[in-house]
């Protein structure tokens, strides 16, 4: 009887060990920005079709992603709040760029079509500061003389979670408005003077879609999916620019990638037809890892993304420069297991 019990216990123990090993080898998890969520979902589904690995990603906002990867509850984070080298070193993290895209203000105004409504950065800042409260304000009307704007209150919609989209959007407003720079600055969370908070890019898109008179800011694909009215925004050179992949690329191409952290600020850049609010999503992974197999699978996922995403849709810009890709992949060689052995040989 004892022998049967012992054998059963041994079988059970080894089954559990095998299950644990299989689970570790076949599932990787990430969390963070909602900005690249639509393209990440496409990539995950494409990767899972060709690999026996399950990738889970929770779009909880960039700040939550950083928090979770720091707490080591996920294998990787994706964040639009780029960290600098000194910050990365304090948290034993490695950072590399994954994808870029444009952030666009979106509005819900009757009889206004996408791209025909013009805004300057300063007027946009004054709307978000609560200094302009009606759509027929003279400063808005003077930018749009051909549009007959009604006396409709402006409903400001912003993020209430720690957001990289907010970080980039407010960074742009800080560069174009002294009032914004002095009173609020740039941040993932802000003490918004007016408006209503929503969670995620999708939360803002939904609210703007539902509420007449609303204004929000989202990653371009969310504007397209919810058929929201985008605006023509004045850039540093004074051009009124329409958001699309070409205008995003004009800003993106100005990135130098010279910093070891790859951190780039792509707001309010000069250049004809250059979109003034472009964000980069970065991947964060720990430099030392307990589970060697899991980190190899994580790197394989990103390697697959880089090799299969030369042309992607939805207004996103892939990282396709061969020199940059070589640098990124070379930086993965610093990753080690808990004993200090390199993960990649």
């Amino acid at each position, binding site marked *: 009887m004892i022998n049967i019990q012992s054998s059963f216990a041994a079988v059970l123990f080894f089954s559990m060990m095998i299950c644990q090993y299989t689970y570790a080898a076949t599932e990787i998890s990430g969390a963070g920005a909602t900005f690249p969520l639509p393209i990440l979902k496409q990539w995950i589904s494409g990767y899972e079709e060709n690999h026996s690995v399950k990738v889970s990603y929770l779009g909880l906002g*960039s*700040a939550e992603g*950083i*928090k979770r990867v*720091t*707490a080591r509850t996920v294998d990787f984070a994706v*964040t639009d*709040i780029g*960290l*600098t*080298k*000194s*910050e990365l070193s*304090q*948290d034993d993290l490695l950072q590399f760029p994954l994808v870029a895209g444009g952030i666009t203000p979106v509005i819900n105004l009757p009889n206004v079509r996408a791209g025909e409504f013009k805004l300057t950065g300063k007027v946009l800042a004054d709307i978000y500061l609560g200094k302009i409260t009606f759509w027929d304000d003279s400063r808005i009307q003077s930018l749009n003389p051909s549009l007959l704007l009604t006396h409709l209150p402006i409903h400001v919609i912003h993020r209430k979670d*720690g957001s990289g989209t907010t*970080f980039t959007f407010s*960074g742009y407003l*800080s*560069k174009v408005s002294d009032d914004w*720079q*002095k*009173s*609020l*600055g*740039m*941040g*993932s*969370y*802000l*003490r918004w003077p007016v408006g209503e908070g929503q969670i995620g890019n999708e939360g803002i898109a939904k609210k703007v879609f539902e509420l007449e008179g609303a204004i929000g800011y989202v990653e371009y694909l969310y504007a397209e999916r919810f058929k929201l009215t985008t605006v023509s925004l004045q850039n540093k050179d004074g051009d009124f620019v329409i958001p699309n992949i070409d205008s995003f690329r004009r800003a993106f191409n100005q990135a*130098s990638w*010279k*910093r*070891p*952290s790859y*951190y780039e*600020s792509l707001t309010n850049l000069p250049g004809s037809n250059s979109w003034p609010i472009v964000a980069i999503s970065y991947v964060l992974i720990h430099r030392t890892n307990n589970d060697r197999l899991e980190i190899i699978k994580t790197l394989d996922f990103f390697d697959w993304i880089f090799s299969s995403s030369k042309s992607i849709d939805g207004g996103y810009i892939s990282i396709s420069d061969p020199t940059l890709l070589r640098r990124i992949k070379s930086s993965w060689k610093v990753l080690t297991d808990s004993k200090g052995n390199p993960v990649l040989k």
Partner: protein
Amino acid sequence: MTKKKSLRLITLSLFTCLTIFSQIVWSGGTPTTFRVSKDFKSLIIQGERPEIVACMTATSRYVKKSLDYKELRWLDSTSLSAIFNENENNGQLTRVISLQALALLNTSNVFDSWIPIVIRCKQVDEGYPEVNLNVVGSSKW
């Protein structure tokens, strides 16, 4: 133990209790936070704004080494009231971060009082923030 010794012990205990109680009353109403983490990882995990955490960590280190300040306390409003700005000139990225906090000055007073301070961090490119502390005004106590 003699009666005299017991009395002395009771008096001493009462005095200690009174001192602790007065310290608690002294600090009552000060809008300080119970978030006492000082290192980068802990501050991130407790949910501070990621972009200001390097400045918070550098300030804690600065105060620890400082001869002018004894201790630092973050306010519940520190994170939300922080003002962070960055600019790039000739390829050099400069970040300036302003934070509000409370500090204990390194004085020989019997009763310490927390005074409001403004912290200014300047971070150039990938470097560590340089910290500058300024006392806003004297303590209300």
